[in-house]
């Protein structure tokens, strides 16, 4: 099925939760809703599922207006942050429960439950009760229950957020495999950019109740339409500096002038907001055209293989993500180097006006 939200708005007690949102998701597609807490991810999912009715606008499935059709009459399944299973039923009965309601023959139920359990690596737990399982296993059961039925729309609301970091990583890997072979639409909400990138598919970036960009996940990451996207879909968020382009070159709030990179050549003179990802700022110059930028260190965080250096320049805060271990302390003066080929430029209205060239073909 094709699901469209057509200019939907949602206002609750006078508070707008969703502003005029239009989005069409294709059959069999995997879609990530990416946004911070309160960006409207859950509200959007509830509208898609039919749990809520939009204040205005239409929900369209296969050219049929289903606005106001309640969730029971739609073929939808949902997985939540909390591990929701029937505590008194065995894992088998939990997974089988949606099939029993649909009055499917016993042998088929058995077959389908086993198949789903196998895919989620819980076939050895079928006789246990959910209370005896670990958090990760419980969430696998909840997912199997959602997947066992051939739903047209599967909604997952931050399903991994309550799991241990390492478990999250493993399940995330598996999930992209599991969903690759399905024809239902999957919508997956998360706050974590890395999760969106790992899962792939398409990404819709939400910012305070507005859809700010929708497209293929890597495409959205590499060509963010506007500044809000760079803040949500980049961890740490993209560094943004005020810049100025004139005949004399590029400046960052006065001081030194630099030769603007090639992809900035067609930009008219004027003020811009210049963006650079933390991973493209280094403590040592990488090329001879690297732009040096001075600042003061707040904190350096070492992850073992990398160092995140949080620094301050005037009133803007910067993050530098560099390989290796670098020791710095509060107040240290530091010059970092930016490769101009990776600069983004945004206009007055925060929308993208210039971005680094198309990436090489292998990224596909």
């Amino acid at each position, binding site marked *: 099925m094709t699901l469209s939200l057509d200019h939907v708005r949602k206002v*609750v007690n006078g508070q707008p939760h969703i502003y005029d949102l239009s989005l069409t998701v294709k059959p069999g597609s995997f879609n990530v809703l990416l946004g911070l807490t309160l960006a409207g991810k859950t509200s959007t999912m509830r509208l898609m599922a*039919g749990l*809520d*009715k939009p204040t205005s606008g239409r929900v369209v499935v296969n050219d049929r207006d289903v606005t*106001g059709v*309640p969730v029971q009459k739609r073929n939808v399944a949902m997985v939540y942050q909390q591990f929701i299973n029937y505590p008194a039923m065995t894992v088998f009965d939990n997974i089988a429960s949606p099939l029993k309601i649909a009055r499917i023959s016993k042998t088929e139920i058995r077959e389908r439950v086993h198949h789903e359990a196998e895919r989620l690596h819980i076939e050895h737990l079928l006789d246990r009760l959910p209370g005896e399982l670990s958090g990760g296993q419980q969430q696998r059961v909840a997912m199997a229950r959602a997947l066992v039925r051939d739903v047209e729309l599967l909604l997952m609301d931050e399903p991994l957020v309550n799991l241990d970091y390492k478990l999250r990583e493993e399940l995330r890997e598996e999930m992209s495999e599991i969903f690759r072979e399905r024809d239902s639409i999957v919508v997956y909400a998360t706050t974590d950019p890395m999760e969106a990138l790992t899962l792939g598919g398409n990404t819709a970036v939400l910012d305070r109740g507005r859809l700010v960009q929708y497209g293929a996940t890597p495409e959205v990451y590499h060509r963010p339409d506007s500044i809000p996207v760079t803040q949500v879909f980049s961890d740490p968020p993209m560094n943004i500096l005020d810049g100025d382009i004139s005949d004399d070159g590029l400046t960052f709030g006065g001081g030194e002038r630099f030769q603007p990179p090639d992809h900035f050549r067609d930009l008219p003179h004027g003020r811009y907001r210049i963006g650079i990802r933390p991973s493209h700022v280094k403590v040592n110059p990488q090329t001879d055209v690297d732009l040096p930028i001075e600042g003061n260190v707040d904190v350096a965080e070492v992850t073992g293989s990398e160092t995140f250096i949080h620094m301050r320049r005037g009133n803007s805060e910067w993050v530098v993500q560099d390989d290796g271990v670098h020791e710095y302390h509060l107040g240290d003066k530091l010059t970092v180097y930016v490769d101009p080929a990776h600069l983004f430029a945004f206009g007055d209205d925060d929308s993208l006006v210039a971005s680094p060239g198309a990436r090489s073909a292998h990224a596909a």
Partner: protein
Amino acid sequence: MERPVNQGAWLMVLPVVLIVSFSAIVPLMTVVNYSFQDILYGTSSWVGTEFYTDVLTDDAFRRALGRQFLFSGIVLLIEVPLGVGVALCMPRRGAVVSACLVLMALPLLIPWPVVGTIWQIFGRPDIGLFGWGLNTFMDYNYTGDVFDAWMTMIVMEVWHWTSLVVLLSYAGLQSVPEAFYQAARIDGASRFAIFRNIELPKLKGVLMIAVLLRFMDSFKIYAEPFTLTGGGNQTTLLSQQLSIKVIEQSDYGYAAAYSIIYFLIILLLSYVFYIGLLNVGKEQE
């Protein structure tokens, strides 16, 4: 959270509306009818608020009302702190807990008149353990002395209902996360400070419900004191006074007005508690 509106759903509610109107509203209206009219052997005449004036100026009613407030007040003052106290003394988990809870719930399962009968015998100075025991320290006779009668009545009520407060408070205390106790220990808080700053605020909502339930029930109490003392020694409370009017004197108009006033007092006070409860809820949000 908003749910999809389904107009057909109203039809489903219809049977309930019918049942409620026949079980509650219609009988109540009959009482209202009786209170404004003098009805006797098929004839009736409108008397306005005359019965109400009668009730309100009747000394017997006033005395019963006074006793009723005194009784409910004393009962609440004893049962609530006692119930919370017992709940605080219980362990937070373990096998003992279920045993404690079952034992304590037993009095709640006993029918009202039976409670009265139990205490009637239990309190007798000659053969009752309670009465005989007390009589060795003091001159105790609940059938002959006002104070003794009241004391027995209150002890009986406390015995019967404190467990309800215990159960509610215990459930409330269970919802306090372990981390709060641990943090308080590290902060060096005394037992009283823990109660005052953690447990009591978390119990507020539950305690309001306990007070509301206990007030309503104790204010309507009838069977136990009636079985125990039959209303002697100034133990005639509101409901018993009412039954005297209906059963012994067949004064239906007066009794109807009495009932309405009785009902309104309970409604008003329950409303006050209810508003208090709502405010507690808001504060906790």
